[in-house]
């Protein structure tokens, strides 16, 4: 033992104590994913063992010394069929099993708490519904389904939490979602796994999983004062959205109350579910999905609102369950000073 250099010894000790074959299972989906993973490892090991054993056995039995003259064998349809059908069957099992898990990871439950995460070179910005804002960190409670709605401001990023076994690309110009339910409190790695430029390596963060109680405390202590919906309301007013989107009989745009999650008839025929992605598109590329009964007069807000702004607006629209709040913003719009007025009357680009 003494002959081994202390550095190597330390190294080995460190290795043996920290050795892990897979990351901690800290979400509900993790054990399910691991079950499939270990099934595949098992199948691979069996397959590999069969090949290695056969090769070794044949090498011993039929090496030239023992078996100087080869017996010519053309092949065997039965064997060919065996090693076509058995692997195919196993692969199909893996396909179905994998598809089921894929289905689960990307189908959030209806009651999930939604957190927005915006990726940009080179940081993650998380927006909690209550207005809590985090950079390269995400605090979440255990025992609650969390849906993360992702978007990127620039290039592709990938939101990866190995301990939860989830990963989703953050795409420029489009929302993607992933959900998970954390089970074990602790701090876990958050990585950007899609190469995104110079400081890709530094685009990491911490996922802090807390008990629901701690989480409530954390929420209270790190609030920025206004919730996302409140920020959205402010934006709704300052962009004069209510000039058209109100409940007056002569309103030029559809009313926003209760819009979220509703099926909207489109002027081009067909319907669309007003989800986050639709609302975002309706703000930035309004002419692509015109609600039936309205003229395509809404101007685009592309380049005028940041991704966070869009998120706030969506949260605001989500929160609208009565007309009262819209009326409020309408009143504030009416009371705005003259300088802000043109924005309100800008309306259509050219009738």
């Amino acid at each position, binding site marked *: 033992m003494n002959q081994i250099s202390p550095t190597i010894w330390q190294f080995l000790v460190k290795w043996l104590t920290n050795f892990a074959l897979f990351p901690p299972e800290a979400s509900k989906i993790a054990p399910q994913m691991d079950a499939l993973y270990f099934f595949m490892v098992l199948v691979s090991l069996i397959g590999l063992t069969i090949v290695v054993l056969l090769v070794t056995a044949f090498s011993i039995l039929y090496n030239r010394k023992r078996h100087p003259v080869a017996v010519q064998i053309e*092949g065997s349809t039965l064997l060919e069929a065996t090693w076509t059908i058995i692997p195919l069957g196993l692969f199909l099992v*893996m*396909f179905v099993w994998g598809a089921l898990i894929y289905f689960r990871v990307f189908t959030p439950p209806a009651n999930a708490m939604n957190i927005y995460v915006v990726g940009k070179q080179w940081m993650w910005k998380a927006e909690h519904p209550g207005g809590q804002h985090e950079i390269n960190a995400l605090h979440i409670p255990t025992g609650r389904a969390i849906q993360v709605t992702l978007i990127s401001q*620039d290039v592709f990023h990938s939101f990866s939490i190995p301990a939860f076994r989830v990963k989703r690309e953050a795409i420029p110009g489009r929302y993607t979602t992933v959900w998970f339910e954390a089970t074990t409190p602790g701090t876990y790695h958050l990585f950007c796994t899609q190469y995104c430029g*110079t400081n890709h390596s530094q685009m990491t963060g911490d996922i802090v999983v807390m008990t629901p109680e701690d989480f409530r405390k954390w929420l209270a202590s790190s609030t920025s004062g206004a919730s996302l919906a409140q920020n959205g309301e402010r934006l709704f007013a300052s962009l004069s959205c209510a000039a058209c989107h109100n409940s007056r009989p002569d309103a030029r745009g559809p009313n926003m109350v209760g819009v979220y999650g509703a099926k909207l008839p489109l002027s081009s025929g067909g319907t669309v579910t007003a989800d986050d992605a639709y609302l975002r598109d309706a703000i930035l590329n309004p002419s692509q999905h015109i609600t039936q009964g309205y003229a395509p007069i809404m101007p685009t807000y592309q380049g005028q609102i940041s991704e966070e702004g869009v998120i706030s607006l969506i949260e605001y629209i989500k929160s609208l369950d009565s007309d009262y709040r819209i009326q409020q913003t309408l009143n504030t719009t009416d009371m705005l000073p003259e300088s802000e007025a043109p924005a309100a009357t800008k309306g259509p680009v050219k009738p």
Partner: protein
Amino acid sequence: MSETIVKLPDPSTARIPRDNFITRENGLLSWLLTGDHKRIAVLYLISITFFFFIGGALAGLIRLELLTPQSDLMATDTYNKVFTMHGIIMIFFFLVPSVPATLGNFFIPMMIGAKDLALPKVNLLSWYLYMAGGILAIVTMATGGVDTGWTFTTPLSTHYVNTKVLTTGLAVFIAGFSSILTGLNFIVTIHKMRAPGMTWFRLPLFIWAHYAASILMVLATPVVAIAIVLVALERTIGIGVFDPTKGGDPLLFQHLFWFYSHPAVYIMILPGMGVISEVISTFSRKRVFGYTAVAFSSVAIAVFGFFVWAHHMFIMGISNYAVLVFSLLTMLVAVPSAIKIFNWTFTLYKGSITFETPMLYAFGFMGLFTIGGMTGVFLGSSGTDIHLTETYFIVAHFHFVMVGGMLMAFLAGIHFWWPKITGRMYPEKLSQLAAVVTFIGFNFTFFPQFILGTLGMPRRIASYPPEFQVLNVFSTAGATILGVGYLLPVIYLIWSLKYGAIAGNNPWQATGLEWQTQSPPLTENFVVPPVMDHEAYDYEWLERQQQAEKQTEESHGG
């Protein structure tokens, strides 16, 4: 294990034939303007080795940087350039042309009994294109490099980096054309230049594999060419096709890119599989088990290979329905590879096996490719792909397939045909050592990366959380062993050019037509144009042939 099938001519009287493709003409120009497929293959071999060692040196830098958790050896943007150039050089300038352009170029005409490839000038042109692309890539690297990753992902490559995307793209574009021309040439040759009696099912499996790979080269490469053209135009004048702010879809680039780059994986591995079929048959003295199954599995891989590209994009925002379709098709393409592995295994059954270096590499290939292929299924299954993709798991997976598979096959092929190409044997003991060292080094390097990937370590990062260090140290240590394993052959193969034993026509007692002529071959390949009158891998025919030769010799002597 001392048993060997090697039969060398009597060293006291043996000599290299005076007239062969190397000695026929002299001077640099006779090489640079040659139309001879064998000379072009040698040119390719030299240039490919050069690019391999550049790519290898870059890999060494990557491993050194990853020795410690911090980004301390080089700045992160340097690191990004290093891994980008490692990928580009290894894929476009080593793996894609490696076996086809060297061994394929040399042996396809010989195996089918032709004098040359159908289009010798095009063949030479494709080497020049390859060199032009390669030199452009190296110059780009020397004058600033590029840091997009070899995948050129938009919009990163179009709007967010200011390194030399255009020249690198041009280099890849040119190399792509070289690859198209090589594939086209092979297809025409295999269709039109076969010797009398050489029917499709008498072709060596090496030819089948190259045929399948060539189809992929011809049909898939143009799509990446247009994708690169679009990236270049997007970058220069902003056409908006891949730009989300202009309504373009950045994922479209990935569709076009992977439409080539997934089949490219098969372009790389299929010729390697062809080599393994030849080697395993020769060193177990047996016809390949299930010849037709192996032949058709090559074609099946080529055809299915076109249907699976989007499995690189499962979590990137393609539709979930598309994920299901592509995941299912991916499972189907895994089957032909399994068929091949089992057929090779059963070729050994009741064979008469010897363990020369090519056979050791072939065994290495089978083990490593099985692991590489199986881990591919992990990534093809949409569920586990979520966790494993974009991590070191995927790095380990494709290195098992590309380095463990393709490179092993390349080395097996180089050793197997070295006596034919040069007329001299390589030193057997040393090369067996090199094969074992390569195998051990390889496993040390890349196996820990599977665990790293499962633990979640992202790919393409210069710094990582400290708990990943131990496995990274293992990997780097293994890489040094692997480096030794790769340097050894270069040394002893060059040594053997002068000092190796004279090989004679057919040192391995192999059945391919290429072995029935002198080594190194004549410029015309055969003195008398061969007629194929037996099946491939017919060792009984070979024996009869040799006995007949012996008798004529004896009768002449008597």
